[in-house]
């Protein structure tokens, strides 16, 4: 949020190269300076367990930014300082942004800034980011630190004596070689048995392995614990000491409104109904709003189409320009945005208010049934709106295994466009119970496939560990900004594909390759799925935009009255296949970007085959109804 407020609209969101970690960059001008800012992922520690930690640590140590801003939550001082101490060990010019001082005050926590600055040895700027307080002070301090040319002073804090001795000893072993990493930091990380640090250190001095073993052995004998635990404990001791010395509790924390609300939200009896109501309201709101806006856009676009037709006359040029390119853009605007944009806003609000964490808390048990944990609930919900942000959202899971499992399951969730197909076809012509039945079938499939994938994937599942942020009233402006930047990311990644795909299909139509394609596909469409051969085309179009699966049906079958050309069973089979088969092209793009070609291809192929299997089986079973 601080990043967003600083950079305003001058922002760009992408990925760290080769990793599934979001990277946000921006610029701003302040005084005589142009400042480039990079938002590093929110992490708790600088170990090398997750990609987020690796990315941050490499960036700070190797790229050596001019200044690093450490954003600390004033309500969680002690725990945040654990991370601050690790940053200090990296010897980087640091400014501390002490955020949410208003919440801390409300809880009766008064923080003595001077004392904190003294104990840490770096400047501390108090802020209330959601209300825009403290930003100019922060920027001034950043400039100050930059101008003073400090190379990053060591923290005045030290570990216990035997640890410090071991650190110094390791430092001397490495002093003859040059390294980008500060020697003290390397020494500390070695004692923490950090794998990457070991590799770096062995490069500098191959003999260091023996010395390290000796030292860690001594420490472990003395303390009875492995050396990395001891270092963490010591760091926490220091953090705790600093926190106690710089903070006074004016009034004992009493259960404020936020706490009582929290209890209600996670209550045994009320929690789940409340969550269900919230989710249903969101869906209803988003779909209604989306529907209205979408319709409006569609009307505008047909006007534009007519205008263009009037301008350049019918013919190949019109077909290419309008049918190929423009319609692609329009598809994105009319279908994707009206649903995705409100979804993103809602997610941003849920996130900022802290309710999202409560949802993960309540959903954890259910997620375990498919081998994931509570945090996976969030991308799943997103997928009901659009699979693209849903699949991107799988990044919040910690391990690669969880991410791939989550994204695999997520692609089976029907997005808004697929819902259009299900409701528009089965819901309208066969009956709403059947349509809802398809959703239930979908959940069952997710359960079964999730468990199967869980058993098939190597590696251990990890349990839920998640910070529960304080409940806060969300600030709409901040949420809107966040939404805007995420939308940009979506537009840049998905739109080009939608447009190109649309263009290609248009060419196919114009070159009358459609008939032969239908012929080729008929063994599957007619023979196995028992559908009219024309649907071969619509299913292919569906790769582009799922709603085309329904919208084009009328044109290829030659009538708007679908009940006259399709039996109820055929409609159900068709909708089921639509729901389960290939992800839309934008989703495939995300899969490729985040997980690589091989896995994206594997998931896509599996889904196609699986959908065909289920569709064919249904076609035969439904005969009995």
């Amino acid at each position: 949020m601080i990043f967003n407020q600083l950079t305003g609209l001058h922002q760009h969101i992408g990925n760290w190269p080769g990793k599934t970690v979001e990277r946000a960059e921006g610029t701003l001008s302040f005084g005589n300076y142009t400042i480039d800012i990079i938002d590093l992922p929110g992490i708790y520690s600088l170990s090398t367990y997750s990609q987020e930690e690796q990315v941050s640590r490499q960036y700070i140590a190797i790229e050596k930014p001019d200044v690093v801003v450490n954003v600390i939550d004033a309500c969680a001082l002690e725990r945040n300082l654990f991370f601050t101490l690790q940053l200090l060990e990296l010897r980087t010019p640091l400014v501390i942004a002490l955020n949410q001082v208003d919440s801390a005050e409300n809880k009766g926590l008064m923080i003595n800034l001077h004392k904190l600055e003294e104990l840490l040895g770096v400047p501390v700027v108090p802020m209330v980011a959601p209300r825009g307080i403290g930003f100019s002070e922060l920027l001034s301090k950043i400039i100050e630190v930059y101008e003073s040319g400090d190379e990053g002073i060591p923290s005045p804090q030290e570990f216990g004596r035997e640890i410090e001795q071991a650190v110094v000893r390791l430092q001397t072993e490495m002093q003859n070689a040059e390294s980008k990493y500060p020697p003290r930091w390397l020494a500390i990380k070695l004692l923490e048995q950090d794998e990457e640090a070991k590799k770096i250190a062995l490069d500098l001095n191959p003999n260091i392995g023996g010395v390290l073993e000796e030292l860690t052995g001594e420490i472990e004998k003395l303390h009875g614990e492995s050396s990395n635990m001891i270092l963490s404990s010591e760091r926490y001791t220091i953090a705790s000491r600093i926190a106690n010395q710089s903070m006074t509790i004016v009034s004992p924390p009493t259960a404020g409104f936020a706490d009582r609300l929290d209890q209600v939200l996670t209550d045994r009896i009320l929690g789940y109904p409340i969550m269900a109501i919230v989710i249903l309201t969101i869906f209803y709101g988003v779909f209604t709003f989306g529907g209205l806006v979408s319709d409006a856009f569609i009307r505008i676009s047909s006007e534009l189409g007519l205008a263009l037709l009037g301008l350049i006359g019918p013919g190949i040029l019109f077909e290419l320009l309008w049918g190929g390119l423009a319609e692609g853009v329009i598809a994105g605007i009319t279908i994707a945005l009206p649903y995705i944009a409100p979804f993103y806003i809602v997610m941003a609000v849920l996130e900022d208010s802290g309710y999202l964490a409560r949802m993960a808390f309540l959903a954890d048990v259910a997620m375990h049934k498919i081998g994931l944990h509570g945090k996976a609930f969030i991308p799943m919900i997103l997928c009901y709106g659009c699979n693209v942000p849903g699949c991107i959202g799988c990044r919040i899971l910690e391990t690669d295994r969880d991410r791939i499992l989550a994204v695999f399951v997520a692609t089976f969730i029907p997005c808004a466009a697929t819902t259009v197909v299900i409701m528009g076809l089965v819901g309208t012509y066969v009956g709403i119970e059947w349509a809802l039945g398809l959703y239930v079938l979908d959940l069952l499939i997710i359960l079964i496939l999730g468990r199967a994938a869980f058993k098939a994937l190597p590696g251990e599942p990890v349990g839920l560990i998640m910070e529960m942020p304080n409940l806060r009233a969300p600030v709409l402006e901040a949420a809107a900004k966040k939404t805007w930047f995420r939308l940009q990311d979506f537009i840049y990644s998905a739109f080009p594909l939608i447009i190109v795909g649309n263009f290609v299909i248009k060419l196919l139509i114009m070159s009358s390759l459609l008939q032969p394609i239908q012929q080729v596909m008929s063994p599957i469409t007619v023979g196995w799925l028992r559908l009219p051969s024309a649907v071969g085309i619509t299913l292919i179009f569906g790769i582009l935009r799922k709603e085309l699966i329904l919208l084009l049906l009328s044109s290829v079958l030659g009538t708007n009255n679908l009940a006259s050309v399709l039996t109820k069973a055929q409609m159900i089979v068709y909708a089921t296949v639509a729901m389960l088969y290939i992800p839309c092209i934008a989703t495939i793009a995300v899969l490729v970007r985040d997980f690589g070609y091989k896995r994206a291809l594997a998931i896509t192929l599996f889904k196609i085959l699986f959908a065909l299997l289920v569709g064919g089986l249904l076609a035969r079973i439904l005969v009995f109804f």
Partner: protein
Amino acid sequence: MISKSREEYLKAIYALNEEGEQAETMKIASRLGVKPASVTGMLKKLSDEGYVKYESYRGAELTDKGDKAASKIVRKHRLLERFLTDMLRLGKNNVHEQAGEMEHTLSDEAEEALCRVLQHPDLCPDDKKLIPPCNKDIPDCTACDGASPTSERDAEITPLSELKQGEEGWITFIRGGRSACQRLMDLGLTRDTPIRLVDSAPFHGPVEISVRGTKIAIGRGLASKIFVRVR
């Protein structure tokens, strides 16, 4: 060395308590398949030897000494069940009885080695009940290597997943390997850290604890690996 029959009784009382029931004479009798009169006789002996507190209308309650002994035998039983299921791949049906025979002759040394080779499991295979932790005075499983002698832990510890709302305590033991400990550590859950249970989700869902001034949600599985001594 406690006799085999005493161990059976201690095990039964422990199991009844675990299920939230009082260890009344009739229940113990039906569980062990013996006459109520025998139960009364044995309970009196156990009471004299300091293992239980016995009141005829309330049933038996384990003393500290009794709880330690009961935990030990239950632990051996459940570790053996895990061993027979996971490593020897015996079907679940035979495992309970077989373990019930072997537990009495398993030495403490073998128990320790078993826990290590099974990589410190925390639930027994058939009914997913918690395997009681060992009583070594170590902060976590990485410090257990069989070579260095360790003293006995004297505090009574409870898994985080079984704390009641509002209960406070200090983290004393984390059952798990390096990566689990590391993750917990990064969020401030280290030895002797004071924590308070804020809430626990229904249906064996995650627990929410307050630690170092912040609230953290921990999945139930992970929470049953974190042991605290209650205030």
